């Protein structure tokens, strides 16, 4: 509802204030351009989807693995946690060209960029999930004679699942951004390439097509994760609404 109102007022504003379409195109123009250039665009789109899905999966796997290792080895956690946070302070925009210099124009530097963006939310939220496991449950499990591995598999892991999914949700939207940024730096295909070409030739309408596609894609990824969460975390549905 709010969205519809927003688009309508946008349309009306561009018409009444006679804003030139190279500055801000109207929504109708954007949709027209989107349909018109769909054939050219779809190749870019699939390339970006593949890249972000690939990066997202690798990134969240690494994120989960880091969380597992750091949780099960508290000493290592103490040593490496600051490093983990520092990795997020590296400006990706600066790092990405360097990665291209190091690893060429292939898939690898792009996947590294997405991984770097994706792993952090997953690992931090998973670790918090493990750590915040209710004392009661741990106490009972120990009294009942559970080993450290049983404690992890039967209590800490299921307890952390909801937070793992929060991390995955954040990462899934980041992955699209990561993919687009990595494509800016040198790629044959992808929304990022399309966007650079469009903006350098003042095709603002195409830039907006790209922006909307990125938003739709992020939203789609997000929804997929939510659906996945619903099938995996079945208990206590009321709490997660």
């Amino acid at each position: 509802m709010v969205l519809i109102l927003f688009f309508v007022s946008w349309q009306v504003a561009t018409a009444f204030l006679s804003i030139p379409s190279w500055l801000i195109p109207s929504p109708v123009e954007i949709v027209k351009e989107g349909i018109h250039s769909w054939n050219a665009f779809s190749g870019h789109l699939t390339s970006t989807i593949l890249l972000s899905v690939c990066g997202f999966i690798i990134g969240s796997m690494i994120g989960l693995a880091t969380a597992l290792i750091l949780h099960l080895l508290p000493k290592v956690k103490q040593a490496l946690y600051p490093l983990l946070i520092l990795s997020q302070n590296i400006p990706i925009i600066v790092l990405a060209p360097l990665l291209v210099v190091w690893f060429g124009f292939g898939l690898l530097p792009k996947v590294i960029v997405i991984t770097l963006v994706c792993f952090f939310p997953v690992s931090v939220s998973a670790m918090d999930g493990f750590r915040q496991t209710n004392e009661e449950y741990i106490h009972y499990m120990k009294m009942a004679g559970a080993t450290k591995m049983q404690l992890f598999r039967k209590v800490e892991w299921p307890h952390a699942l909801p937070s793992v999914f929060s991390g995955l949700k954040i990462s899934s939207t980041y992955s699209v951004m990561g993919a687009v940024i990595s494509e800016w730096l040198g790629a044959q295909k992808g929304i990022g390439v399309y966007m650079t070409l469009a903006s350098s030739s003042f095709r603002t309408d195409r830039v907006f097509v790209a922006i909307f596609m990125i938003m739709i894609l992020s939203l789609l990824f997000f929804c997929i994760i939510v659906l996945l969460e619903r099938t995996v975390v079945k208990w206590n549905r009321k709490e997660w609404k």
Partner: protein
Amino acid sequence: MTSLSINNLSKSFDGEMILDHLSFSVDEGEFVTILGPSGSGKSTLFHLIGGLFAPDKGEIKLNGLSITGKQGSIAYMPQSPSLLPWRTVIENVLLGQELSGKTDRKKAMRMIERTGLEGYEQAYPSQLSGGMKQRAAFIRALVSPQSFLCLDEPFSALDEFTRLDMQKWLLSIWEEDRSSVLFVTHNIDEALFLSDRIIVLSNKPARVQREFTVPFPRPRQQDILLSEEFLSWKKEIFEELSYFA
């Protein structure tokens, strides 16, 4: 079958003596209650029996074998039900068995039926009332492979009515099976109503202050709660406890 003996158990934390040469025993098929003020080291005692810590001195024996510092030797029911919220009732009940390898779903189902939780096997703990959660936690302890039961103030979080219901329920189950039970509480009525023997602990450090053998016959009836005899016992224990206040 199952008996527990505690010999000269001592434990201190941060230089403060919590348990001081504590000795007592629970015989086969006996229901023994530890009664003491809050913070008198009852929990510490359970942690030692459960093997979470090692005592400074002394020994814990189950069926004549030392279990000092060994985890997983007893079936345990904690103060809060501690049912895992992502498991259904039946999965929770089976948890104790899972830890030691084999699960016996049939036995668990039989117990659930016998104890009035039938129809709730597939429910999640969040759908149960406080009393029902405690029942599930008790069944979990009962079907655990360990035969000695340790109950740590299991009804202290319940309201007065539910508590009496649960006590009667517990008696009805226990009087059929007669496993050996060590029960901890700070409620005198509860101790008198349920147990064969009551061990009163002193406050800081905990020593065995006095032992009472409860004379009421089994199966216990609710009306003893208001009998003259019950009240005079209660008075005596109360005086013993207020000795430290």
